[in-house]
C-alpha cells in the first residue's frame, strides 16, 4: 500500500509530498524524501520497554509503563525546580499537555529552540520579523541569500522545493530567475552552488550587517575598506544588489544565532530587511531545525504568552532567556529534576550542562536510545510522531499541517504518557495539600 502526500517528520521544511510504501504494517520504502527524512521514516532500532535504574552508571531494569510513569510523577511532584525540556519532535497536541504539566509542577518548560533559534525570538522581540509563507518566496524571490545556514546539509530539499530551483508564478525560469548569495565563515556545499560566496570572519557577521545597512542608507562613506573580512567594494556591490532586488529573501541559521552577538545578529539582520523594504520587497526567515520546533513556540505562546523558557515557579508564566533557558538553569545548578521528552539534551547541550544534569534524577520520554538515555534514571519509550501517530506540526514559516500516521505500533503516545503523569502528579499533590 502506498500512502501519498505524507508529511516528513524531520526538519522545518515539513515537505508534504512524500510517498511511503507500507507492507504488513511496516514501512518498506520512502519516495521523494531527502536522505535524512527517508532515514527517519524507514525507522531505526528502538527502546523496547520502559526501564529504570537508581544509579546512572548501573544497568537499567525493565519495568512496566505504570511503574515508570508513577515514579516519574513522584519525582516531578516532589521536586522544587524541575526542567521539562525537548518537545520539538512531538506533535502540538502533546505540547499543550507539557505546558499543563509544567503548570502542575511549577517547573520550567523549554524546548530545543533554546540551543537553536531562541536568539531569533529575542531578535523578534526587538525588531519584529518581516516574513511570509514559503510559497510567497518561491513564487517571487529574485535574490536569495543564505546567511549562516547550509541547506544542502541541513534542509536538503529546501532549495528545490522552495527557494532556488523551483519554478513559480513570477519565477518562471527556476534557478535562472534568482541570484543566490551565501554568507558563511567557510565554503560550504551550499556556497559551492551559489552564484556568489561571501566569506565572513567568524563572529563578525554583525559588522557586515551594519556595513550593509550603512550602504543601503546611502552612507557608504562611513564603511571601512574591509569589514568582517569582506572588502568594501564587494559590500557596496552586494548592498546595491539588495536595494535593486524586486524581492530579496534572506534565510538564516545557526551562523547568526550561535556566533558572537547571537540575538543581536538577528536584530541587525531584521533591521536590514526592514530598511530594504523602502526600496523593494524583502523578507527574512529563520531555517528551523526540527519539524515541529516552530509548533512548540506557537503552542507555548498561545498558552502562556511566551514563546519558550517559561518558568512557572511563581504561579504565573515568567520568561527571561539568560535566566530561564535550560542551560542557564543547569549551569546555575538550580534544577533538581529533569524531564526530557522528544528532544535530546544529552547530545546537544554543552558537556558541562549535562554534567549538572547528571547530578539529578532524569526522566526520558523518547522512542530511541541516545546520549540522554545514558544520563537517565527512567526511560519511557513512545510512538514516533509523524510515522506512528498523527497530529499537528508547524512548518518553519508557521504554517500548521497535520502529520499522518503510517503504521500502527503498540507503544503509547507522548500525550498518553503525559496525561497519566499529570493525573498522578495531581493525585500526589492533592494528597499532600
Amino acid at each position, binding site marked *: 500500500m502506498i500512502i*501519498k*502526500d505524507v*508529511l516528513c517528520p524531520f526538519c522545518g521544511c515539513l515537505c*508534504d*509530498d512524500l510517498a511511503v510504501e507500507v507492507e504488513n504494517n511496516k514501512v518498506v520504502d520512502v519516495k521523494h524524501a531527502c536522505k535524512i527524512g527517508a532515514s527517519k521514516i524507514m525507522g531505526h532500532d528502538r527502546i523496547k520497554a520502559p526501564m529504570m535504574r537508581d544509579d546512572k552508571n548501573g544497568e537499567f531494569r525493565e519495568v512496566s509503563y505504570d511503574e515508570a510513569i508513577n515514579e516519574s510523577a513522584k519525582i516531578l511532584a516532589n521536586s522544587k525546580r524541575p526542567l521539562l525540556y525537548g518537545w520539538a519532535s512531538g506533535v*502540538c497536541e502533546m505540547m*499543550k499537555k507539557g505546558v499543563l504539566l509544567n*503548570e502542575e509542577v511549577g517547573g520550567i518548560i523549554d524546548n530545543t529552540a533554546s540551543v537553536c533559534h531562541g536568539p531569533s*525570538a529575542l531578535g*523578534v*522581540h*526587538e*525588531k*519584529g*520579523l*518581516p*516574513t*511570509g*509563507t*514559503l*510559497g*510567497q518566496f*518561491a*513564487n*517571487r524571490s529574485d535574490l536569495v541569500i543564505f546567511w549562516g545556514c547550509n541547506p544542502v546539509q541541513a534542509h536538503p530539499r529546501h532549495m528545490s*522545493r*522552495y527557494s532556488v530551483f523551483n*519554478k*513559480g508564478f*513570477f519565477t518562471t525560469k527556476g534557478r535562472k530567475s534568482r541570484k543566490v548569495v551565501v554568507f558563511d565563515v567557510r565554503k560550504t556545499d551550499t556556497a559551492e552552488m551559489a552564484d556568489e560566496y561571501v566569506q565572513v570572519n567568524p563572529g563578525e557577521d554583525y559588522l557586515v550587517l551594519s556595513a550593509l545597512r550603512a550602504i543601503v542608507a546611502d552612507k557608504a562613506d562611513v564603511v571601512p575598506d574591509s569589514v568582517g573580512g569582506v572588502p568594501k567594494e564587494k559590500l557596496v556591490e552586494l548592498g546595491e544588489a539588495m536595494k535593486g532586488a*524586486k*524581492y530579496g529573501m534572506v534565510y538564516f541559521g545557526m551562523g547568526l544565532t550561535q556566533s558572537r552577538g547571537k540575538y543581536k545578529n538577528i536584530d541587525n539582520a531584521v533591521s536590514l530587511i*526592514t530598511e530594504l*523594504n*523602502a526600496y*523593494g*520587497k524583502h*523578507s527574512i526567515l529563520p531555517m528551523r531545525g526540527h519539524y515541529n520546533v516552530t509548533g512548540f*513556540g*506557537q503552542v507555548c*505562546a*498561545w*498558552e*502562556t*504568552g*511566551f*514563546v519558550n523558557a517559561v518558568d*512557572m515557579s*511563581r*504561579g*504565573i*508564566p515568567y*520568561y527571561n532567556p539568560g535566566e530561564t533557558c535550560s542551560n542557564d538553569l543547569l549551569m546555575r545548578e538550580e534544577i533538581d529534576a529533569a524531564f526530557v521528552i522528544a528532544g535530546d539534551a544529552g547530545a546537544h547541550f554543552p558537556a558541562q550542562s549535562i554534567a549538572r544534569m547528571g547530578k539529578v534524577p532524569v526522566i526520558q520520554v523518547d522512542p530511541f536510545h541516545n546520549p540522554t538515555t545514558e544520563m537517565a534514571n527512567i526511560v519511557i519509550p513512545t510512538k514516533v510522531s509523524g510515522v506512528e501517530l498523527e497530529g*499537528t506540526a*508547524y512548518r518553519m514559516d*508557521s*504554517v*500548521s*499541517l*497535520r502529520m499522518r500516521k503510517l503504521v500502527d505500533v503498540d507503544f503509547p503516545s507522548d500525550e498518553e504518557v503525559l496525561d497519566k503523569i499529570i493525573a498522578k502528579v495531581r493525585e500526589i499533590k492533592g494528597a499532600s495539600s
Partner: protein
Amino acid sequence: MSEMLIKNATVYDPINNINGDMMDIAVKNGKIVDSVNGSAQIIDAKGRLVYPGGVDAHTHIAGSKVNVGRIMRPDDSRLNNKPRTKVTRPRTGYTVPNVYSMGYGYAEMGYTTAFEAAVPILKARHTHEELEEIPIIDKAGLTLFGSNWMVMDAIREDDLDRLAAYVAWGLLASRGWGIKIVNPGGGEAWGFGKNVSGLDDPVPNFEVTPRQIVRQLAEANEKLNLPHSIHLHCNNLGKPGNYETTLATFDVCKDIKSKRDRQSLHVTHVQFNAWGGNHWGDFESKSEPIADYLNKNDFLTIDMGQLVFGSATTMTADGPVQYANARLLKARWSNGDVELEDSSGVTPLEYHPQSYIHGIMWAIGLELALLTKDPWQVLMTTDHPNGGPYVNYPMVMTMLMSQKRREKEMAKIAELTFERTSIAGIDRELDWYDIAIKTRAAHAKVQGIIELGKGHLGVGADADIAIYDIKPDETDATVEFDKVEAAFRHAAYTIKGGEIVVKDGEITATPKGRTYWVKATAPADGHERMMEDLKMKFKNYYSVSMANYMVQDEYVEHPYVFETGYQ
C-alpha cells in the same frame, strides 16, 4: 438537564422589542423556554439589568497574527498576570492575552460569542487550534478572500458561478463563517511591496480592480445566500482623505439585495476610514458625511473601530498600512504574507491623548455612533486589539451613554482635536436599549445568527444571558458612569448555554463553546471549473499539497454547521 429561573430581571432585548420590562427568564437544557417547574435553580436578579450575552462581530482573538503579536510582545504578556484557580488556567496579556484570558475576559464582561475577523485559508488550521483553546465563548471566523488569486482569476474571467464555488470551497477549507475582504487587491500588490490606491486601481499582474473584487464577492455572497454579508475593510485605511474612498466603496453595493433580513454590506472599523484632510497637518474627522450616508441608506452597516488611549497591538491583513505605521512610529514590525491569498502585518502602538491625531481618531469612532440615527447600523467595536483591547468595551459603552464621561476624556485630549471634530458639540446619550443593540442585538443581526438563537432572549434562543449589577431605573448612566463601567466590566452573572460561568465577576465554570461555520453548495459546473483552476494552482504555485491543505474535522471539536447555497 438543568433548569433555571431568573427572576426579577430588568430585560433589554431589542430583537424582541423588550425595553426594560421586569420579567422572569426560564431556562431549560441550555435554551430559553416558556416556563420551568419548581425544581429549577433560582437566580434572583433583584431588578438588575439583564442583557442577552454579548456578541462581538469583529475582533482579532485567534490565529497567526494574534500569535505573532504574542511572540513579538513579551512586554505585553507581562501585564494582567493572574495565577490559576481551581477553575481557571494562568492568565497573561493585555492587548494579546493568552488563549485562556481571551475567553475569561469576554465572559467576565457578559459576552458569550465572538467572531475572529480575519482567517487566511492556508493558516486556518492555526486559527482553529487557538479557537478551540479559548474557553466559554462560542466563536466563528471570517475567511479572507479579497486578494486571493482564485478569486481574482474568476473575476477577471467574469465567471460568477466559479467565484461562488470557490467561496463555498474556501469556507469549507477554512471552516469559516463568511467572506472577509481587507484592502481588496492590496494584499496581492503588497506581495511586491506595492498597494492599490483606490477602487479603480487595477491589481498588478491580475487586471482586476478593487471595485470588481468587492462587487463580485458581494454578488457571490448573495447567490450563495450566506448568513452574513460581505465584511469589508476598505482600501486606503489610515490615510488622511480616505473618506472619499469609503463613500465610493459604499456605493459599489448600493443596489445589491439580500434574500435574508440583513444588510448587503458590512464595513468594518470605519473610524480608520473616515479621515479628512490631505496629510497629517490638516487631518480632520469626516464622520459627518459617513453618518449622513448611513442615515440615507439602509443596505449598509458598519462597526466603530473605537480608539482607546494606551497600548494597542495593531494586526491586520492590510500589510501596507502596518508597514507604514511601523515606519512612521519607528516601531517593531512583523509582516506575514500568505501565498496566493493575502498579506498581514503586526505592529505595537501607543495611543496618546496628547497627540491630536489620536484625539481625532478617538472622536471619529464616537461621532460615527452618535451621528448615525439608527443604532442598529453602527456596532460598537474597538477592532480589538487595533483600536484598543476588548476589555475596554465597558468604558466605550459609558462614553456612548454619557456626555459627561466624554467630557472627562476630552479634558485630557489635545486641544487641536476639537477644531477638527464635532464630538464636543454632540450631546446625544444612548440609553440601555441602544447599548443592548450596539453590543449584542445588532452584532447578531449583522452576522446572521439570530435564527441560531444568538443575541436575544426569546423562547428558543440559547440561554446566553448577562446580569449586571445595576438597577437601570435607579441609575443615571449619564452621571454614574464609573459605576456603570464597573458593572459592565464584571458581570454579576454570565450564563452560557444555561450554565453559570461567571458570578460576581469571577469565572465559575469553563465549558467549551461551539464553532460556527458555513457549508455552502454551488452549481456543479461552476464547481468543476473552479476545481480545475484550483488543482492547477496547487500543482504549480502552492507550497502545500491540496491533500494537506483543508482544515480537518479534528480541529473543530464542537461545530455548528450552517448549510446554504444555490443550484
